[in-house]
């Protein structure tokens, strides 16, 4: 698609809406929310301006990662229905603009974090951007079906960065929240991969359903959902959160596991509409929002 760009189209300056779309705003909303919860659940008081600036830095870092991911994967995105309309494969933006935008935004986000918070948070933000772009996008994603298992660490950084921005140090609770997102990523992405499997196969991306087949992916979704549920509830018995969070985590995780059992034990035939997989995918997003909301609510109630 990008090759069919005419001289006239490339000569036009990029529209700001396309630059905004490059930052994957929907993914960014979850990143911002989990980072904010990490920051709000931290002990002590953070000046509102510094809290806002830290969250802005994390959002810009996530946007930069998204832009660099789309720059690198423009060729693959063109082969998939779900992503063919993005600015680069659709030919509305030239790759060099996307690369400059991504690198510039990444550098600025780290600088802002350094200025508004501390060097520890800026270092973690740098690691998360590099991990997502180099380790996940360039190295793991095109090579192994374990791509999103290991790459899930990139998406797990925000609450950790939020906490470190507020305190300047690490603690067990944000590490458990990191672990929670890390274990949440495989069932979340594999549920999606099950119903867009043909897209991934067409692009040659070795996602689990493409390489190991559906039955194996379904079993692994169930496995990860079970250990994720244990990790989600763990902060309560370990004494890092109160009962409010504990009960919310138990109830939400029970629903998550129930939906995963439905997906895990199912066999599909031709023309299946994949409704349980779509339900699990949609619930997994709500699950993370509600669980992190519960962390903050619990912290404020105890405080």
């Amino acid at each position: 698609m990008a090759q069919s760009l005419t001289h006239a189209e490339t000569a036009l300056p990029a529209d700001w809406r396309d630059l905004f779309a490059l930052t994957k705003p929907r993914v960014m909303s979850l990143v911002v929310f989990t980072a904010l919860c990490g920051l709000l659940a931290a002990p002590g008081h953070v000046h509102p301006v510094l809290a806002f600036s830290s969250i802005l830095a994390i959002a810009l870092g996530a946007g930069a990662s998204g832009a660099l991911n789309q720059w690198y994967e423009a060729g693959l995105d063109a082969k998939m229905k779900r992503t063919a309309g993005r600015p680069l494969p659709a030919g509305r933006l030239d790759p060099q603009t996307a690369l400059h935008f991504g690198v510039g935004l990444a550098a600025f986000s780290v600088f802002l974090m350094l200025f508004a918070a501390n060097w520890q948070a800026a270092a973690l933000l740098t690691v998360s951007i590099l991990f997502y772009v180099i380790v996940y996008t360039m190295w793991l994603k095109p090579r192994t079906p374990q791509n999103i298992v290991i790459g899930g660490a990139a998406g797990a950084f925000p609450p950790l960065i939020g906490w470190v921005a507020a305190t300047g140090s690490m603690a067990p609770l944000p590490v458990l929240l990191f672990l929670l997102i890390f274990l949440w990523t495989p069932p979340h992405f594999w549920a999606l991969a099950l119903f867009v499997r043909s897209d991934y196969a067409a692009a040659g991306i070795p996602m689990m359903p493409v390489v190991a087949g559906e039955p194996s992916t379904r079993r692994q979704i169930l496995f990860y959902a079970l250990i994720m549920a244990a990790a989600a509830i763990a902060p309560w018995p370990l004494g890092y959160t109160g009962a409010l969070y504990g009960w919310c985590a138990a109830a939400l995780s029970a629903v998550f596991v129930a939906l995963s059992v439905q997906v895990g034990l199912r066999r599909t035939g031709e023309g299946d509409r994949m409704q349980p997989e779509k339900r699990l995918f949609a619930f997994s997003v709500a699950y993370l929002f509600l669980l992190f909301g519960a962390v903050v609510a619990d912290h404020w109630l105890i405080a």
Partner: protein
Amino acid sequence: MTDETPPEPFDEAEYRRRQRSRANLMGWILGALAFLFFFITMARMMGPK
């Protein structure tokens, strides 16, 4: 040396529109950043986080 193939014509009005909208947006962003950096400096000067 001259280029044999003339450049394809493009929509001048669209070019101007995009240039103007990006310039406007950049102006707002730079203004907002100036305020943000001022307030960050004030917040840091007011004491420990």
